[in-house]
């Protein structure tokens, strides 16, 4: 037989087949592995943020019996009263056998310094409580909060934790009396920034983000659409339009921090605009998001079939009328989708805003686009830099809020695309 002497090609192929199939399977597994790795990273990211952050939506509060002693209040100068003393007095009353300055000071530390502000607000809004005794839930200190949430371990030597053994025993007693409870953390959504974690909130940053995005949207959407319309519908094919196109493509790839340098050198130093203002932040982000919006808008204009244009021109519309009455309305959903995606990018952007001073510590909630303010991602950056343990969970919680905004914006964009997508 022939095959005894000489091996056929078929045999050679068959001999190698098992090995080749193994290789094939291995290669395929690598591919699947790559996908699974990316998904796992994303899962790990979300899980670790959520695990760190969900506790921040609760804040420990302490129930104190406050005597609003009429003698201590001067009706004409309510702000001058010593509200801290009220808190201290009621703490002393709870633990009458705590003696010595040091111990007392430790005791007072269980309540937040913000407790006195809360009392001041109470009195200011309702002066009739002066002279009465009220049970009031007041914010506890962030260390107490961390202890109750289990971030400060109980079974380590006293020197290794931020709370002394005595403080721990007081806390235990308060918990047993039902005077220390975790409640929904409203402060986190209603307050501005603060050095004290238990008083810090994201409202200032969220409002700052809102102002910044409003400026960005008001500028970048009209300018982006106008540029896209010019380039798609009017621009002659020449060196000048080529230059514009090259510029747009390059700007899309310029690192964001370079836009921050532009903002610092041009808007702040040359034009003398205010530092830390959402107005300037919005201008910088406008320049950054313009390429995204222009590219999306052009794609959207391109997808409108030429027959519509020609029909409009055929019944006597001018070119501008054909565009404004027919092409723009049809291209609008695509343009809006691109704009929402650009806005989502702008909302998550941090680096250029650091350059124009939106990184300052600002307690007040901004009231206009020229007030100093910060934005959500910068707030996250600031809190991530803070040493207190309680800021870690607040950072994570702020990230969850930011991601919720981003995901809903993107989901809305996807929804728009699905709803208005047209096949011609």
């Amino acid at each position, binding site marked *: 037989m022939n095959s005894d002497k000489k091996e056929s090609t078929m045999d050679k192929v068959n001999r190698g087949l098992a090995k080749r199939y193994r290789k094939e399977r291995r290669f395929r597994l690598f591919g699947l592995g*790559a996908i699974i790795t990316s998904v796992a990273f994303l899962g790990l990211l979300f899980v670790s943020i959520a695990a760190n952050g969900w506790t921040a939506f609760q804040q420990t509060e302490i129930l104190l019996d406050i005597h609003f002693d009429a003698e201590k209040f001067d009706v004409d100068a309510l702000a001058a009263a010593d509200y801290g003393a009220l808190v201290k007095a009621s703490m002393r009353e709870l633990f009458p056998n705590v003696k010595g300055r040091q111990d007392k000071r430790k005791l007072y530390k269980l309540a937040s310094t913000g407790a006195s502000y809360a009392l001041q607000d109470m009195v200011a809004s309702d002066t009739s409580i002066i002279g009465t005794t009220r049970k009031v839930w007041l914010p506890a200190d962030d260390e107490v909060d961390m202890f109750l949430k289990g971030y400060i371990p109980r079974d380590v030597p006293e020197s290794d934790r931020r709370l002394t053994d005595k403080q721990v025993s007081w806390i235990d007693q308060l918990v047993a009396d039902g005077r220390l409870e975790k409640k929904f953390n409203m402060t986190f959504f209603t307050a501005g920034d603060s050095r004290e974690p238990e008083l810090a909130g994201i409202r200032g940053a969220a409002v700052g983000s809102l102002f910044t995005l409003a400026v960005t949207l008001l500028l970048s959407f009209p300018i982006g659409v106008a540029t896209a319309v010019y380039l798609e519908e009017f621009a002659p094919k020449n060196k000048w339009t080529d230059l514009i196109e090259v510029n747009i493509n390059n700007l899309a790839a310029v690192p964001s921090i370079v836009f921050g340098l532009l903002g610092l050198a041009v808007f702040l130093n040359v034009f003398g605009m205010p530092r830390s203002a959402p107005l300037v932040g919005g201008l910088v982000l406008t320049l950054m998001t313009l390429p995204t919006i222009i590219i999306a808008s052009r794609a959207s204009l391109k997808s409108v079939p030429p027959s519509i244009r020609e029909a409009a021109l055929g019944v006597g519309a001018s070119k501008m009328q054909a565009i404004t009455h027919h092409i723009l309305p049809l291209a609008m959903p695509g343009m809006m989708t691109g704009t929402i995606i650009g806005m989502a990018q702008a909302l998550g*952007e941090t680096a250029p805003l650091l350059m124009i001073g939106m990184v300052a510590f600002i307690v007040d909630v901004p009231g206009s686009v020229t007030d100093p303010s910060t934005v959500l991602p910068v707030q996250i950056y600031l809190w*991530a830099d803070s040493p207190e343990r309680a800021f870690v969970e607040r950072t994570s919680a702020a*990230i969850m809020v930011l991601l919720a905004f981003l995901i809903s914006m993107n989901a809305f964009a996807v929804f728009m695309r699905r709803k208005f997508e047209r096949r011609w």
Partner: protein
Amino acid sequence: MMSSSFYLLILLALASFAYMQGKRRAFSLSGTGGGSRKLHSRPGYYGMLTAVWCVLPALLVFGFWMVCSDTILTSLAMKTLPASMQELSSDQANLLVNDLRNLVAGSVAARDINPVLQEAANQYRGMEQIGRIALAVVMFSAALFSASLVYMRISPEMRARNHVEKIVQIGLVLCSTIAILTTIGIVLSVVFESIRYFQHVPVSDFLFGMKWSPQMAMRADQAGSSGSFGAVPVLAGTFMISGIALSVAVPIGLMAAIYLSEYANSHVRSWAKPIMEVLAGVPTVVYGFFAALVVAPFIRNSGEMLGLSVSSESALAAGLVMGIMIIPFVSSLSDDVINAVPQAMRDGSYGLGATKSETIKNVIIPAALPGIVGGVLLAASRAIGETMIVVMAAGLSANLTANPLETVTTVTVQIVTLLVGDQEFDSPKTLVAFALGLLLFIVTLVLNVVALYIVRKYREEYE
């Protein structure tokens, strides 16, 4: 600020009034017989033209005032100062101007007010009041004048639509030049400040210096008063972190793209692709927090278990997380180029008996290689320019090292640390940030241009 938005509101009201008047006049001119058919344009265009000419001159006046009022008023107020204070050097004069501005803004404590300066500030405020009234008068009379001029000229023969369209088109052209202006702005701002920097420090010291410590001493006799500005360690750190990032992102991103475009069925694709997009949409500050909170301690602990000393701000942690960030970037670009390889090439390979993986390795990847290289270059430029991850997870000290477990610093980290907080625009310490920015801009620009060129050139081959 209140009154400027108030002015704009009044202007808006005037414009809508002008629109209605223009439209009405056009209607009344068209007479009863033929109705609006006698008009050259539809009546709305006459109204629009009137409104546009009402707004444009007023806006010009308003913009001019907004830009120049401060300079003019300051120089006028400075003139009221006594002669002795006017013969100062430019530096001292600048200080005075600053004091004056603070006084005007009312942000100085009452006790350290210089009475003379206070006088000038009062002068400034007074002139500002007058200026505002003058602005209102000029602005609104310009608006009314030009609007009524147009209004008078309205006639059935007037080519209102063409006029309006011409104005709109000019507006479109102006909008499209903003892209160019931005580029010019970027280039000018980094180049100007860099030139000022290079007057302090020679270019060669900056580009080839091996030591980076930009902190300048306050007094000349302090140790290390000069500061050293050698960019080599900073660049080395940048490239190391970007290199780590690319060595994570390129294999994973490429394999993910291959799997998605060649193996995965539509079901897998329909959930894997959005997940990749989510990975791309996560803000970088979140990645930075993740790197500092989870990845860096994990690497340090596992390093300690192996007996290695790992810095808590190691280049590895920052690079790893940056790699995760650019995976979707690499995979979506590779996906595009792999899909652009013609099906005929795959079929030819299968026809010869090759398995799928052999086809991918021997046919598709070589064919798509230029595109993939372009994508990798784009990803590299993204990694080099990335800021927040390295600011939060990488260090500040510029070590010239090849050990990824040590702390290194990057260009973007240095720009942020030098420019956040107090800035003095006459000291090399602040200006060097712009020189680094120029370097960053040039490097990323070159990478982008080369990448786009490669991608475009080789895409044409299959079209």
